[in-house]
C-alpha cells in the first residue's frame, strides 16, 4: 500500500518535471517519422493552433494547404495537398512528426521543418536576409507545435 503510494507520487513528480522541461529540438526521437512524446508536456490548444496555422510569421500552413475546416482563412495555397481528413489518415504522433521534421515522413518534400535548429545551408536570421547562427530558434516553439497538432486533430471527415 504505502509502497504504491510513493511510486505514484514519484510518477506524478516526474511528469510534472517533464512538463517544465520540454523536449529540445535536438533531443526529439523519431520512430518512422512520428514523435510519440508530447514536445511541451502540456496538451495542445486547437484555438491557438488555428492561429499558428493561419499566421504568416508562425506556421503559415495556409500558404500551402487548404481545407474545408479552415476555409474562413482567405487565400489558401495549393503547393501542398488539401488537409481534409488529415486526422483520419494520421495519428497524433505522426502529425507531430510531420510538423516537426516533415522530411522524416516525406523524403525531399518542400514542406519546411518547424522544430529544427541546425543543419542548414546559409541559415538566415529569420526573414532579414542576414546571416543567422546555428542553433537557430525553431520556427515554432514546442507548445506551438502541440497547438497546431491539436488543431489538425479536428480535421476529420
Amino acid at each position, binding site marked *: 500500500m504505502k509502497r504504491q503510494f510513493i511510486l505514484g507520487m514519484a510518477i506524478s513528480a516526474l511528469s510534472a518535471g517533464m512538463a517544465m522541461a520540454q523536449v529540445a529540438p535536438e533531443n526529439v526521437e523519431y520512430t518512422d517519422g512520428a514523435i510519440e512524446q508530447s514536445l511541451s508536456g502540456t496538451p495542445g490548444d486547437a484555438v491557438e493552433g488555428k492561429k499558428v496555422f493561419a499566421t504568416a510569421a508562425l506556421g503559415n500552413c495556409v500558404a500551402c494547404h487548404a481545407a474545408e475546416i479552415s476555409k474562413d482563412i482567405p487565400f489558401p495555397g495549393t*503547393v501542398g*495537398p488539401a488537409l481534409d481528413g488529415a486526422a483520419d489518415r494520421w495519428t497524433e504522433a505522426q502529425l507531430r512528426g510531420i510538423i516537426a521534421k516533415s522530411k522524416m515522413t*516525406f523524403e525531399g518534400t518542400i514542406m519546411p521543418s518547424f522544430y529544427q535548429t541546425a543543419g542548414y545551408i546559409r541559415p538566415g536570421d529569420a526573414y532579414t536576409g*542576414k546571416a543567422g547562427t546555428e542553433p537557430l530558434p525553431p*520556427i515554432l516553439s514546442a507548445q506551438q507545435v502541440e497547438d497546431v497538432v491539436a488543431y489538425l486533430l479536428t480535421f476529420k471527415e
Partner: protein
Amino acid sequence: MKQRKITTALAATAMLGFAFTGAAFAEPVDDALVIDGTEITIRAPAPAHLNGALPDLVSGWAFRDTETRAMQMDDFDNPGMIFVDRGLDTWNAVDGTEGKSCASCHEGPESMAGLRAVTPRVDEKTGKVMNIEAYVNDCRTTRMGAEALNLRGAQMTDMLALISHQSRGQLMNVAIDGANAPIYEQGKEIYYTRYGQLEMSCANCHEDNYGNYIRSDHLSQGQTNGFPVYRLKDAGLVSPQSRFVGCVRDTRAETFKAGSDEFNALELYVASRGNGLAVEGVSVRH
C-alpha cells in the same frame, strides 16, 4: 517509399477537393502579349539543355492578373516606361573626368539592341561575368573616369530599363558553352541548392510548383526575360538580382549580394533557362 505513394494519391484527391471548393484556376493564361501591334513571344519550347525539367517555357506575364497584364500591353499605362525615359537622360549626361557620356561613344541607345538577349556572358579576356550593369559600370570607371553606380540604385535601374527596352521582342539566347560553361554550371548548382531554414531551392518553387499558389501568389517559372520589371507592390523597378535577393531572403537564408559571383552565375543560368522567350523590355508584375 510507401509514404510517397500514399501522398501522390492524396495529392490527386486534394486536387479534386479544390475543384469543389472552387479555388481559382491555376493555369497561366493563354492570351498573347501584344504591344503596339507587335506580338511578344511569351511561350516557347523548353531549350534542350533543361533536359525536360520544364515541359515548355512561359513568361511570368501569363501568371499575372488581368489588370497587371493589361498595363504591360500599353506603353502609356506601363509605369516602367518612365524609367526608360529617365535612362535616356543618364545616357546623354556627361559625367566623370573624361568629359564623356554614353552617347559620346555609342551614339543613340539603339546601338545596344540585342545586348539584353545574350547577357549575362563571360568576357573572354577578363573572365568576368558581364550583365548590363557590369557593362555600364565598366564604361563608367574605365572610359568615363566616373564612379561606379550602385547596382540597385535608381540610376542603374534606369539604364537597365533603357538598354533592355532596345531588345524588346528579341529572343533570349544566352550561351551555355565556351567561356560561359563553367559559370552556367555554377549557377545551376545554386539554382538547385536548398537554402535557409525553410530549405527551399529556386527549383522547389519555380520548377516543381509553378502554376500553384503559395498563399495568394501564383507561382511562375521565375523567368528573367521580363526584367527589369515594374513591381506594383514596391512601386519601383526591380533588376533580376534584386528579385533573387528577395526570393532567397524568403527562405530564411542569408542572401547573396547583388553583383556577387554567386548571383552573377545564377543570373546567367536562370537567363539561359528562358532561351526562346522574348525580352519584354520593361514588364509589369504585381
